[in-house]
């Protein structure tokens, strides 16, 4: 009877001690590896942010270039005037049609790229600036945009599919 009552007590004590020691070792291991794991995760997170930023920039770049390539003014049409674009730029002659505008607009949250009614939205951009690509001789040649995303500044210069004639003095 004595034997049978003492044996289980010894067993449970050993298990508890083992558990405590194991927990302590685990905590010590975790504490020791925390800075390493933490910096690895932070680095991965930063790399992922940067990659997603680059990916967003790439999507914006490809969309803006594709839209600009569809702007095809005939060579006899006068260039549009490079007025201050503000938060939206509109270029006529989308798909070669004078009354069809290509639109790039920034509403503070997303960049809208495309036709007026069916624009593609790209989010996650900051400090967006819209401008015209000009040749310095009275011709607007395309869109020029600057923005930040993924912790980097990007600039897109997207030429139109064709270029109109310069605005010259003496013509309306």
């Amino acid at each position, binding site marked *: 009877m004595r034997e049978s009552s003492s044996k289980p007590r010894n067993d449970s004590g050993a298990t508890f001690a083992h558990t405590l020691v194991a927990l302590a070792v*685990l905590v010590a291991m975790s504490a020791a590896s925390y800075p390493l794991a933490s910096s690895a995760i932070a680095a991965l997170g930063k790399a992922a942010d940067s990659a997603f930023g680059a990916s967003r920039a790439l999507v914006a770049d490809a969309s803006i270039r594709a839209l600009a390539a569809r702007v095809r003014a005939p060579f006899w049409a006068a260039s549009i005037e490079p007025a201050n674009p503000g938060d939206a730029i509109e270029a006529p002659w989308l798909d*070669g049609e004078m009354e069809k505008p290509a639109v790039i607009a920034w509403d503070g949250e997303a960049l809208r790229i495309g036709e007026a009614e069916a624009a593609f939205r790209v989010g996650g951009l900051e400090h967006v600036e819209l401008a015209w690509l000009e040749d310095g001789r009275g011709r607007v040649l395309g869109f020029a945009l600057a923005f930040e995303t993924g912790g980097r500044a990007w600039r897109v210069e997207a030429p139109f599919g064709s270029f109109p004639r310069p605005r010259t003095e003496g013509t309306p």
Partner: protein
Amino acid sequence: MSALTDIREGERGSAALGALALLILVAAFAAAAYLPLATGVRAAARAEGKAQARAKALDAVLAALPMFEEGAADGVDSRAELEALEASFAGALLVDDVSSRFNPNLLRKNFIEKTTLARFLKPGASVDALQQARVESGLSVDIATAYGDFFEAESLAVWFTPYTYASVNTDDEFALERLWFEATGDSSGAAAFREANRRQLEALTMLSPAEFAAWYGVEAEALAPFVGAEPVLNVNLAEMEVLEAALAYPGYGIESPHATAQSLTAAARSRALDRAALAALAGLDGEHPAWAWLGTRTWFWRIFAKSGDAWFRAIVRMEDREDGTPEAIVVEFREGGPEDDPLKRHD
């Protein structure tokens, strides 16, 4: 001793488990980030490669511009100059004259009806309807779509072009009015221009480029060369069939347009034809109305530039600066090769 061993084994087990869990966590995080990262990197590499190919092709086109300007300085764009230009780029650049054809945006309806161009009309197509369509729908660079109801697609691709300057000596008055309106947005100016063109037609006067401004005024001069009096066809590079059609207009009174066109194209293959040589070969005096079509300059060039595996297509127009020297200006640049171009080379 055995209890200590048990504890050490337990420690090892726990530590290994912890390390494994940590590794799994980091690996899972990395795996989650990998796919979009890899896709993004691949897409970026593709975009970078395409952008580099495009930039290289554009550089080649821009490098060719001074050669066009130099070649046109003597007032003649010859076949030999064209071949030398292509050879200097070792096959990476193909160049052809894309303006020595007929422009369906601008042609007079009686010119279509009374020359060999009539054979390109689709059965039942009317030149009156063509004239009306231009006024209503406007002019277009996409001639295959705009004029597909009037001309056979194959003939549009080979014998016609949207790339010419308008000439008051050869083009339809309503088309000229429409062009003026599209170029300036000024409908009253366009109407006044058509009136001046009508007066020119009634006076049966062919204007030289130098006389154009005196007849049409300073506003028209400011719109040159988009509207002017330069002949469209460069006899050095135009196809025989195109020259034949131009010479076949009955009002010009040329006895054998076919033979004249043949002799012009045969001569142009062996030497550069200037205006004097052209006059001698064709038997045209200085006042002959066929001069309205026949010239020695090319006003629009098409360039195919190969970069890597990709082709790019540019259209370059020529004009003269104020000091009279030629200037080459790129008006179109986009991806596309000779095979998928809507205007075919006729080799």
